[in-house]
Structures are given as structure tokens and as C-alpha cells.
């Protein structure tokens, strides 16, 4: 024990002194540094750092001053709000380690900011979207104000020149909306037209363009070919509704990207390499090569796939394999990058690095599955092309017919047709209902990242469930004590307390659970020793030797048994046995039953041992259960179900579930699950309650009903008004009013969901 502890401390000390020099490594440096040109053809390096420990702008000033005092630092900007710093430095005069050391001397922590580029891009995108949204909404409000008089007054009350002035004002205020705020729709429409297909942007852009051109014509040449009615208010309102939806979508996308960045931070950035002469060097993990020998301190993640060469330890591979108990590792065993070293400091030989490791393979598999997600949910785009052609044909036909009957009315009849069919209500029908439903779900504990997940939830035929951490509590294993001796020497409570106080010295997850569930007696121990994989031993004040760990009979790791046991013995005599059960979440049975009643097939996919999966499956009455599955096996199972034409949902929590979450049509992750699983899922169960899935599904079904009602209303409105416009009975102002009313009806109908 002493030797390993001393080894860990000396290892850590070594790492500290060497850590900063790793930053000067050219490859490592390039991850957070860019080159910027200066005057006279010279160039400077610009590094991004994340600063920890700042509370206010005063701190930012302190860090800035500390940075500027370093020789060779040209400029430094520190932001207290974003907790980051940008440093410009002269590569000939200083090194990153020098100014990071300066920040640390000033009393703050600094780490290289490798995600700075992506974050800057996201900030720019978010500012841009907010700016467009504000321009559209604010101008729409003003235009509506200017449009109100012509709605409220009769034509005799409103003097023609005043009406003219109001129209000009509306035109001026619509100009920024058209030229700037609506630009994404026009570029999107142009891109898809050039690509040879028609997306939902095309009808929207066409509607905007026609409304704007017709209204401008009416504003500047009243009574001309475009008549005298303007629709600037409908136009601006339409653009702001659409931009509002896009803004919310972007916010969700950004928060997903942020959590993905956090998840990738799971691999350590530096490794302690043993050189050929036995000396130690702290190097960037990017510099590791096959065959390098690396030391891994306790509590750190393995930096690469490889083989243990020295020492024995336990590794927590649960996030990668789904196996709930830590795995014993002795010299010669393979270890996996990203798993945690729990037992003792060990040395390993690197076998695979970087993109070859299993951790990276899982991340890549997840991205790949995400890209190939079946496109069952792109209904809007499917209908865009026929819709657009029908509208164009109708308008063109009307103009042609009317140019024969009465050429003076031909243009405004065509304009009426185009305006009355403007896909305003149609394009709001689904998003407004989905948005309102997402708000209601968030209040019920399901945070959605993609609105389309609602459709998937309502339509799912099969729900795949992960076991560990999803159906069962992740840590809170129930501990049951069985007394072996029946003597009066100790009370139950005293034994529990003794076991808990002994367990508190160990880092083993079972010991942690034991220490958490029972109040420690606070006994003092001496001669504490822990044998990895065997147990914890200590001498109490009264001289008795207590041991907590495996029973001798259980030597041959009985990890396949249903239950895991820990034995407490006093002076070699077994006293009590603690049984650890995986505890089902309180609402698991009820939720599974309710979903099955609802017509959902439930299947259990787990990376845990088949015996344990069997037990949980029996408890829940799930017939379809598979254990011992690697992430790719799970992926195969889900793809097979999709190939049968089923709509598949997945509920999981670990990194090993991430690829499957990306593949499934709809995916949900537990709120206490791994970052990467949460980043990948369409929705997160914030309170970890499985009953929320049942509630979310019934809400999702209701949402689809509302969407259908909205579509029927919007399509019915169009179907009723198009003939009126075609025969010239619908003046454009009535078309504009009808368009606004039908949108309002759709939005109000959707809002019923949020109640």
C-alpha cells in the first residue's frame, strides 16, 4: 500500500513539473494556436486559453497584466464572462509554457483551449441568427402598427395621401426584413434550385418575393397592375415566425455540440512516458507511438489501447462496454483508451493510438450512424415540390384565362392566388405544434434536442432499452446484510457501521456503495491494507483484525452470479455477508407494462453479462433480451429492426449506447448518463424517471393529432380560397387577412398542447 501510494505521488509530482513543457510541443501547440500576420510581413502566434478561478472583471485585468509582463507576449485579451484568454506572442522570444506559468503565478488556472475555433464559429452563428431575428421581429411590429389604420378605417376616413405615406413607411421598414433578415431563405432556395431539387425554402422564398414585389408595386403605383393593397405586415410577420423557429433549432444544436466537446475531453491530454533509459517524460498523447511504455496514475483514464506490462489494477470499462462491475487487470491484459484506472498505478505498452483506439472507433461509429439516419421524417420537403408546381400552374393558368376575359385584372388575380396559397399556415402547422409540445415535455422532465423526435416517439414500434444505468440505478445498489454468526457480540447496526467505516477507505464501487448506504461508525483503523480484487483489511483499536472483501470460497471470481457479495470477517472468522443487488428503478416495471399496453415492443440490449441481463429481463417480463453485446452488436440489432420497416426508439445512458442512439429513429438518454450519450440523444430524461417516457409518448401522440388538425385547417383554407381567388372574387387585401387569420388559428390550436 505504502509503496504504491508513494509511487503515485512521485509520479504525480513528476507530471506536474513536466506538464507545462508539453505545451511547447509543436503538435500540441498547434491545437490551440493559430498564426496571425502582423505588419511588415512578420507573423505572431495567437493562443487561446481557458482561465479558471476568475470572478469579475478585476480578475481579468490581473491576468491580463500578468500576461503582458511576460517578455515576448505582444498582446493579451482576457474575458471574465467567457473565462478565456487570447494571447498574441512572438515565437522567437517566448513559449506557451512561459505565459501559462505566469498566469498560474498570478493565482489562476490556465488550460489550452482546443475547442476555441469551434466556439468562436458558434458564437458568430448565434449572434448572426439573433440579429436577423431581432431585425425581423422589431420591423414586423412597426409595420403592423403602420398597417393598422388601413385595417380599422374605411376608405373614406383615411385620406389617400396619408395611406400613401403609411405604405411608403411600411415599405421602408420591410426593406431590412427582405434584404437582410430573410436572406437565409433566399440563399437556401437558390442553393436547392441550383442543386436541381425543391426544398421547403423555395415556396417560402417565392411567396415572400411575390408578396414584396406586388406590395411594392401597389405602394408606388397605386391602382396600377398590382392594385392598391399592400401586404408588408403579413410578409414581415411570416419572416419573423420562420426565423424564430430556426433560432430555437440553432440553440438546441449548439448545446448538443457543447456537450459533445465536453465528452471528447474524457481522454487525458498528456501521458507519462518511460524512456529507454528509465527516465520519465510527460508528453502529449498525440506524440504517443505504438510500443511506447506509459505510466497511468490511479484515477486517470487510459490514454491509448494497449497491454498492461506491470502492476495489477481494476479498470472501470462500464462506459465503453456496459459491464457494470470493474474489471480486474493483471500484467498482459488488454486495456481500452477512455476507461478509468481505479486500483493502482500501472505501466502499459501502447498498442493503438489516436483514431485506431476503440474509444475513437465508437465516436466515429456514432458520427457515421448519425449521418445515415433513415430519412423517415422529411415529409415537408417531400411535399414542397408538388405543392409549388400546383401553385405555379394555378396562378399561371388564372393569369392566362383572365388575360382573355379582362386583361386589366389578370395580374392581380395571379397575385391573389400566389398570396392566398402562401405556405404560411402550412409551414407553421407542424413546427408550432412540435414547439408547443416540446415546451410541455420540458415541464414534464423530457428535454428535447430535436423536434422531430416527437413524431418518432408517437410512431415507435420497438423500444430498445439498455440495462445498466437505464433500467437499474447506476450506483445505488441495494445492500442487504446477512449475519453469519448469531452471537450477541455485535449488533446489526454496529456491524454495518464497522463495514461502512472500513469500506470508506476503499475506492472500489461496491465499497463506495456500502459506505454510502450505511452510517459509518467512525472507528479508527491502523495497519490498513487493500489487496486489489480481494478486499480491505484493518486493525481496530481493540486489536481485532477486520477484513472486508471476497470470501475465500469465492476466490474464482464469481462475477457471473446474479449477486455480488462482500464478506466481513473478524480475526479470520466470517461475521456477515453483504449482498449487492442491482436495483431496478422504482418505476421501471410500471413504465415497461404501460408501454407494452400501448403497443410498443420492448427489447433489452445490454453489454452486461447474459446472466444478469436474464435476471433483469425476467423481473420485468421482457421476453426479448440480449446480453454481452458490444456497441456494434447493438447497432446490428437496431439496423435489423429498421430493415424490417419498424420505427425504432432507443433509451440508453452509456458511451457504448451512443452509436445506437445515433442510429435509432428516436433516441432518449438518461439525465445522469454519459455526456456523449446525452449529446447524441434526441431527448434527455432529466429526472431519470422511466414513467416520463410513457407520458412523453402520450403527449407525442396528442401532438400528431394537433398537427393533423392544423394541416386539415390550412389545406382546407387554401382549398376554399383558391377557387375564390381564381374567379376574381377575392381581393388581395382579403387574401392577406385570410392568410394572417389562418396562421393565427394554427398557432392557437398548437398552444393547447403547452397548457
Amino acid at each position, binding site marked *: 500500500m505504502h509503496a504504491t501510494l508513494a509511487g503515485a505521488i512521485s509520479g504525480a509530482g513528476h507530471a506536474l513539473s513536466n506538464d507545462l513543457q508539453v505545451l511547447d510541443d509543436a503538435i500540441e501547440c498547434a491545437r490551440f494556436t493559430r498564426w496571425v500576420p502582423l505588419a511588415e510581413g512578420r507573423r505572431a502566434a495567437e493562443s487561446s486559453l481557458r482561465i479558471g478561478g476568475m*470572478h*469579475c472583471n*478585476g*480578475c481579468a485585468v490581473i491576468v491580463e497584466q500578468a500576461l503582458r509582463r511576460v517578455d515576448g507576449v505582444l498582446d493579451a485579451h482576457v*474575458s471574465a*464572462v*467567457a473565462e478565456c484568454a487570447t494571447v498574441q506572442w512572438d515565437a522567437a522570444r517566448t513559449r506557451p509554457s512561459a505565459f501559462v506559468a505566469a498566469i498560474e503565478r498570478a493565482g489562476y488556472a490556465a488550460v489550452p483551449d482546443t475547442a476555441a475555433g469551434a466556439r468562436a464559429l458558434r*458564437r458568430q452563428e*448565434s*449572434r448572426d441568427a*439573433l*440579429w436577423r431575428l*431581432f*431585425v425581423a421581429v*422589431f*420591423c414586423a411590429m*412597426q409595420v403592423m402598427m*403602420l398597417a393598422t389604420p388601413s385595417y380599422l378605417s374605411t376608405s373614406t376616413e383615411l385620406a389617400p395621401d*396619408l395611406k400613401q*405615406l*403609411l405604405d411608403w*413607411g411600411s415599405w*421602408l*421598414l420591410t426593406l*431590412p426584413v427582405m434584404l437582410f433578415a430573410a436572406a437565409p431563405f433566399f440563399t437556401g432556395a437558390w442553393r436547392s434550385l441550383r442543386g436541381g431539387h425543391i426544398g421547403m425554402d423555395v415556396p417560402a422564398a417565392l411567396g415572400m418575393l411575390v408578396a414584396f414585389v406586388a406590395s411594392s408595386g401597389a405602394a408606388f403605383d397605386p391602382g396600377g397592375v398590382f392594385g392598391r393593397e399592400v401586404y408588408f405586415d403579413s410578409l414581415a410577420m411570416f419572416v419573423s415566425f420562420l426565423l424564430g423557429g430556426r433560432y430555437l433549432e440553432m440553440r438546441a444544436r449548439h448545446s448538443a455540440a457543447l456537450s459533445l466537446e465536453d465528452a471528447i475531453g474524457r481522454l487525458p491530454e498528456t501521458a507519462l512516458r518511460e524512456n529507454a533509459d528509465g527516465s520519465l517524460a510527460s508528453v502529449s498523447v498525440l506524440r504517443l507511438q505504438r510500443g511506447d511504455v506509459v505510466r497511468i496514475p490511479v484515477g486517470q483514464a487510459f490514454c491509448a489501447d494497449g497491454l498492461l506490462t506491470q502492476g495489477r489494477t481494476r479498470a472501470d470499462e462500464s462506459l465503453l462496454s456496459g459491464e457494470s462491475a470493474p474489471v480486474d487487470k493483471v500484467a498482459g491484459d488488454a486495456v481500452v483508451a477512455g476507461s478509468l484506472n481505479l486500483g493502482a498505478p500501472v505501466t502499459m505498452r501502447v498498442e493503438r493510438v489516436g483514431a485506431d483506439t476503440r474509444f475513437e472507433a465508437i465516436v466515429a461509429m456514432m458520427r457515421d450512424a448519425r449521418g445515415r439516419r433513415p430519412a423517415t421524417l422529411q415529409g415537408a420537403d417531400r411535399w414542397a415540390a408538388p405543392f409549388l408546381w400546383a401553385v405555379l400552374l394555378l396562378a399561371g393558368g388564372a393569369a392566362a384565362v383572365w388575360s382573355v376575359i379582362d386583361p386589366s385584372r389578370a395580374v392581380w388575380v395571379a397575385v391573389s392566388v400566389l398570396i392566398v396559397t402562401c405556405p404560411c399556415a402550412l409551414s407553421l402547422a407542424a413546427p408550432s405544434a412540435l414547439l408547443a409540445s416540446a415546451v410541455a415535455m420540458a415541464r414534464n422532465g423530457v428535454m428535447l434536442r430535436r423536434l422531430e423526435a416527437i413524431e418518432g416517439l408517437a410512431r415507435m414500434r420497438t423500444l430498445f432499452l439498455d440495462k445498466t444505468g437505464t433500467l437499474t440505478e447506476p450506483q445505488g445498489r441495494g445492500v442487504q446484510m446477512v449475519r453469519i454468526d448469531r452471537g450477541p457480540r455485535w449488533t446489526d447496526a454496529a456491524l454495518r457501521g464497522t463495514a461502512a467505516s472500513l469500506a470508506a477507505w476503499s475506492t472500489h464501487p461496491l465499497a463506495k456503495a456500502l459506505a454510502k448506504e450505511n452510517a459509518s461508525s467512525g472507528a479508527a483503523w491502523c495497519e490498513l491494507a487493500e489487496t486489489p480484487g480481494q478486499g480491505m483489511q484493518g486493525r481496530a483499536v481493540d486489536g481485532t483484525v477486520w477484513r472486508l472483501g471476497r470470501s475465500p470460497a469465492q476466490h474464482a471470481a464469481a462475477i457471473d452470479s446474479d449477486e455480488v457479495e462482500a464478506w466481513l470477517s473478524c480475526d479470520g472468522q466470517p461475521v456477515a455477508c453483504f449482498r449487492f443487488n442491482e436495483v431496478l428503478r422504482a418505476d421501471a416495471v410500471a413504465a415497461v407494462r404501460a408501454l407494452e399496453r400501448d403497443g410498443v415492443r420492448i427489447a433489452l440490449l445490454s453489454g452486461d453479462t447474459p446472466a444478469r441481463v436474464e435476471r433483469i429481463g425476467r423481473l420485468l417480463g421482457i421476453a426479448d433480451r440480449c446480453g454481452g453485446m458490444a456497441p456494434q452488436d447493438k447497432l446490428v440489432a437496431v439496423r435489423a429492426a429498421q430493415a424490417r420497416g419498424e420505427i425504432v426508439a432507443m433509451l440508453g445512458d452509456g458511451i457504448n449506447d451512443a452509436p445506437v442512439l445515433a442510429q435509432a429513429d428516436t433516441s432518449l438518454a438518461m439525465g445522469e448518463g454519459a455526456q456523449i450519450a446525452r449529446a447524441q440523444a434526441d431527448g434527455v430524461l432529466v429526472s431519470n424517471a422511466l414513467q416520463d417516457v410513457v407520458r412523453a409518448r402520450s403527449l407525442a401522440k396528442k401532438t400528431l393529432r394537433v398537427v393533423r388538425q392544423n394541416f386539415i385547417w390550412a389545406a382546407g383554407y387554401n382549398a376554399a380560397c383558391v377557387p375564390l381567388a381564381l374567379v376574381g372574387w377575392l381581393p388581395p387585401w382579403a387574401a392577406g387577412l385570410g392568410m394572417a387569420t389562418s396562421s393565427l388559428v394554427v398557432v392557437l390550436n398548437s398552444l393547447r398542447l403547452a397548457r
Partner: protein
Amino acid sequence: MDILYLLIPLSAVLVLGILGVFAWALNGGQFDDLEQHGEQILDAAVDSFDKHQDA
């Protein structure tokens, strides 16, 4: 009601002015993180804020 002929153009110009003010605030980063300052009082690290004030 002749005053309307002055007020309507004036309001249009005013709107453009307000848009300019918003642009300035946006590019100054005032909308980049709306939650952070609200959450700050719940942050455990904040009691060192007061120590900082004493110094």
C-alpha cells in the same frame, strides 16, 4: 392631423436608430450568455468574491 406627416417618417428613422443600438449591444457580446450572470449567485465559488472585495 398634419403632424402625422412628420411623425410617421420620424418613427421610421427612429426604428432604424434602435436597430443600430441593438447591433451595438449584440456585437459587444451582451447577448452571448444570458444565464451566466443569473446563475452566479448560486455558484459555490462566489463566497470568494467577498474575500476579493476585502483585499
